[in-house]
């Protein structure tokens, strides 16, 4: 076990940590997912030694570091808004931790050179942080944290301050860096799709507590509690592979289902393995196949009906006559009048349809 957190309690103003337990394996990419104010940043800062817990234990590689000051932990930290030293150049920012380790000048510049090339920021080295774009600044912050070869990398909402295009680029960069360096990483976010795309495992955090831990699929397929279900939004999230389609469309073939009937038309220019999501309200449910312009239409069977007040969530299994392992469940949101009009019951055969543009690839 790389990091083991046992029964961690902390009170810090409005923020609390209540009995946090975590076990993170070496090389794991672990995501802590939760809404604003859940205590995610405080948890990371406590792991880094910036706050001391009221109770509990943190151990890293078997060593109890609960009372170590931050500078003795060798834990890299990246903040959402970069926190680059404004009085130092990019090069000096990256070298900062190496200076403190009393490394020789040559060794420092070699290490800075290597990490900045790896992050494609080599051309920025002489610049001052204030001249960098958000994406560049975050790469520098990552390089600074990685330069000390930390035994654990903590990322506090590292993508949230970036515009969507930059965010996607940096997200793929994080995947690549993790694959290449294998640094054990804890990444905090409130963005579910970001969590799913990056995580080996996800811990869902709510009001200072970890309410569920598991692989991404398990979190959204089997939320433990009402709250988690609501927070992850009863979404349709799939993993699959994009293959060339006809015209503007690509075919998304879902993982584990090589059945032609569950390939979806998707509007995207990406290829290869991806995640995809469809909002439950974008799926139209009907008793007969619809004549419409919607590119995706499947026959399925109602497996569950969940009443959430204003909206009813109906889960439909496609194809209808298989077990979950060999099929895909779609969740659609319908209104109460349409539920009554169609007289839906569990076990009924129905049709679902959605536009190619309703499938969001990430």
């Amino acid at each position, binding site marked *: 076990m790389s990091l083991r957190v046992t029964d961690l309690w902390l009170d810090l103003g409005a923020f609390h940590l209540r009995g946090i337990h975590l076990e993170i394996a070496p090389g794991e990419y672990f995501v802590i997912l939760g809404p604003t104010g859940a205590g995610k940043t405080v948890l990371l800062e406590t792991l880094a030694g910036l706050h001391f817990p009221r109770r509990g234990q943190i151990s890293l590689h078997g060593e109890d570091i609960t009372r170590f000051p931050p500078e003795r932990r060798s834990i890299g930290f990246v903040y959402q808004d970069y926190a680059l030293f404004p*009085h130092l150049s990019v090069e000096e920012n990256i070298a900062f931790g190496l200076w403190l380790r009393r490394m020789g000048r040559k060794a420092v510049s070699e290490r800075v050179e290597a990490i900045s090339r790896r992050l494609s920021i080599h051309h920025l080295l002489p610049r001052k942080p204030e001249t960098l774009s958000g994406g560049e600044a975050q790469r520098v912050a990552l390089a600074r944290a990685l330069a000390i070869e930390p035994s654990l990398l903590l990322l506090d909402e590292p993508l949230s301050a970036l515009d969507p295009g930059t965010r996607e680029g940096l997200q793929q960069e994080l995947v690549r860096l993790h694959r290449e360096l294998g640094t054990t990483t804890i990444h905090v976010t409130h963005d579910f799709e970001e969590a799913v795309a990056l995580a080996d495992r996800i811990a869902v955090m709510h009001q200072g507590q970890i309410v569920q831990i598991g692989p991404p699929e398990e979190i959204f397929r089997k939320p433990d509690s009402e709250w988690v279900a609501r927070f992850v939004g009863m979404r349709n999230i799939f993993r699959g592979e994009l293959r060339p389609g006809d015209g503007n469309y690509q075919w998304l073939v879902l993982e584990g289902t090589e059945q032609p009937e569950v390939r979806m038309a998707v509007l995207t220019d990406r290829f290869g393995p991806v995640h995809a999501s469809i909002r439950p309200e974008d799926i139209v449910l009907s008793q007969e196949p619809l004549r419409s312009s919607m590119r995706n239409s499947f026959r399925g069977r109602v497996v569950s009906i969940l009443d959430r007040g204003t909206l009813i969530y109906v889960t439909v299994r496609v194809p209808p006559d298989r077990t979950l392992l060999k099929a895909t469940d779609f969740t659609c949101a319908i209104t109460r009048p349409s539920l009554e009009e169609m007289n839906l019951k569990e076990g009924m055969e129905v049709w679902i349809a959605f536009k190619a543009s309703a499938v969001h690839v990430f």
Partner: protein
Amino acid sequence: MSVLFANRLTVLFSALGMLLVLFVAVPLARTITASSPSLLWQTLLDPEVRGAISLTLYASFIATLLALICGVPLAYLLARVDFPGKGVVEGIIDVPVVVPHSAAGIALLMVFGRQAPLGQVFGLLGLRFVSAVPGIVVAMLFVSLSFLVNAAREGFEAVDPRLERVARTLGASPWETFWRVSFPLAWRSILSGALMMWARGLSEFGAVVILAYHPMVAPVLLYERFESFGLAYAQPVAALMILICLVTFAVLRGTTRKSRRAR
């Protein structure tokens, strides 16, 4: 604002504001220009004047140095740490600005005077305050330290605490974090506070005159010349003092402007 568009409000406000600006600028300009440059030069060659001016510069410099040594750590604590009684400490630091400076001089005399306890202790060490340079230094220190402490505190407050936290995770001890991150980033504010304090110390009369009429600092010399010989003799000394303060002030504005741009 690039264009001052004229409406009645801005015209009226400009007129009223200009009155105040002229009220300050005209007497200063008149004092400086009243004496010819050659007279100013002669005044500067007067050993008594030169001695008083250099004593003033020196004593204020020492006072500023003392305030830097104790005031910068205090400013850092005030900016970063919440402790019981913090409001009281902040109040005490601000008090010298509001008490009459002659009263401040009396108060210092009560502690540093020859018969006073602290005065006796220092007396054993051979340090005398009344009618001596150390007396001038403590008087200047007392009345002007607020400027340095407050400027430094604002400087430290402007440093994002997360920069310090990141420095810690990168391996810096609290001490290294202070010297490598907090201090360099607050440095311009500290410098401008120090200049402000130094300039304020130069101009101090009330507190200094009570602790040490002699040796004479420039404001006291100026007062004495005015009392003994009249306006004509006091005026060139006043002009010199004003010029020195103006130069200091120009430097001060220069550093603060740069610090604003750097942010």
